[in-house]
């Protein structure tokens, strides 16, 4: 597909006989926001895990800007410019908010850091800026486990924000937020998209999906059932029936 930054071809994964993902094709086009939609257990998170290398696929191909990345270790894939968030956030609980973000800026943290003091100061600067944007500046010294729910969501975003990754894979980033926080959150995402980030998000809240997404990929039981413009997908009665409660076995 033209402009495809990340392309997934024929990706499959089985867990003990259960087909979690069955030959899924998908493309993330530069600057386009794709929403992964589907009922629980459709395999959305598994798809993220396969792309990021947390799970190795049984078959299929993943390419980042034409370079095959299937079989690479997660940290290598991350360093190539794919950032992801987790549904359960997985913050670094016993570290401070600042260190959570700062740590995301040091992927190759070694016994010593390249660039010396100046680079270190730059990283700190960037961290403070990210905290500022996500409204966490006042909490920079607090431990992540001590944050409120909404604050943890923003911290998770801040960690991705600083990485300057080209692709963001976000797993229900805004779920459970109150309307005000949600608006703030969506605004931040839009800013990022405007700055050229390619976003793929898993989202159950269709309001957010319609507000953000340019395309929707619909997954059910490991298969991609449809992909297209949000309006078209959300009008398909069959998909809506699956989504909203066709009784599943």
């Amino acid at each position, binding site marked *: 597909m033209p402009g495809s930054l990340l392309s997934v071809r024929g990706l499959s994964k089985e867990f003990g006989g259960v087909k979690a993902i069955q030959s899924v094709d998908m493309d993330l086009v530069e600057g386009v926001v794709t929403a992964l939609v589907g009922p629980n257990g459709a395999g959305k998170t598994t798809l993220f895990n396969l792309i990021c290398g947390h799970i190795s696929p049984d078959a299929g191909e993943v390419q980042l800007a034409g370079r095959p990345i299937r079989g690479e270790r*997660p940290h290598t894939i991350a360093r190539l410019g794919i950032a992801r968030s987790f549904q359960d956030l997985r913050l670094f609980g016993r570290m401070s908010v600042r260190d959570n973000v700062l740590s995301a800026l*040091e992927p190759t943290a070694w016994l010593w850091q390249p660039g010396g003091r100046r680079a270190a100061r730059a990283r700190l600067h960037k961290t403070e800026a990210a905290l500022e944007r996500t409204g966490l500046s006042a909490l920079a010294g607090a431990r992540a486990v001590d944050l409120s729910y909404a604050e943890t969501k923003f911290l998770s975003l801040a960690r991705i924000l600083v990485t300057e990754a080209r692709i963001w894979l976000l797993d229900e980033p805004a779920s459970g937020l109150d309307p005000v926080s949600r608006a703030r959150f969506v605004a931040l995402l839009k800013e990022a998209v405007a700055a050229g980030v390619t976003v793929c998000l898993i989202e159950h809240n269709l309001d957010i999906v319609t507000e953000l997404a340019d395309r929707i990929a619909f997954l059910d039981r490991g298969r991609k059932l449809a992909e297209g413009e949000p309006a078209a997908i959300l009008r398909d009665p069959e998909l809506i029936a699956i989504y909203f409660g066709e009784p599943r076995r």
Partner: protein
Amino acid sequence: MTAYLLNLATLATIFGILAASLNVLIGYAGIFSVAHAVFFGVGAYAGAQVALNLVPDVLLASLAGGLLSGLLSLCLALPALRVRGEYFVAASLGLQMLVVTVFSEAHSLTGGHGGLVGIPPASLLGIDVSSPWHFLAVCVGALALSLVWIAILMRGGFGRGLMAIRDSESAAEALGKNVPALKTIAVAIGCSLAGVAGTLFAFQLAFINVESFTLEQSVLLMAMVIIGGAGTLLGPLVGTLLLLLLPAALSFIPFIPATEIGTVQQLVYGLAMTLLMIFRPAGLAAPSTGRR
């Protein structure tokens, strides 16, 4: 009296290094090793052999002890990369038991149960440092260096990387951390420091045998770190002082029958471990939990 206090202070310093080094694993990297006495022992034997056969130079012997322990730490890093949690504890237990057998059977290297006797008095770059004051100074120096080295590492990106892995391995990976490399280095650092402590221990006692490197020792070390506060710089030192000075302090209490001191001490130490874990699981030196 001074000599007794000096001896105790030197031992406390050596165990301080040990606890601090174990803290790198337990507190920062989240690698719950109960095989730390193994690396203490490797360092002690290596240092003692250098002192016995080459020169009794603390620096050289410590280097040898630290290096060998660091190399052999791969035995611990390997399971640490494969498994976590209870499985890793089990693996390190296995390693500990295995190595104790090797220590007691490799007569030519370790002297078996008879141990290595007559380790010569220590010197440092040609200067005799075997007097209690001098040797304490050497040990305090080593402890200070270790603490500074750990503090610098843990304040920097490396430490943040380790703690990130400790708190969430998958998130750390997703942010580009090379988890196997970081873990391996952390284990190597912790174990080589333990090796240095082992060498100092060998010089201090002038006699070592396998009884100092058993599972009980590993558990004592672990208790020092946990009781003091894992993941804090000074916690392990607090734990070391408490657990090491406890028997000495108990033996000064006149109303405990001398014959029962050992039992009472173990009892107190066991009870302290259990109660602390129930009421203050983060350890004595850890800041109290914030809002929650």
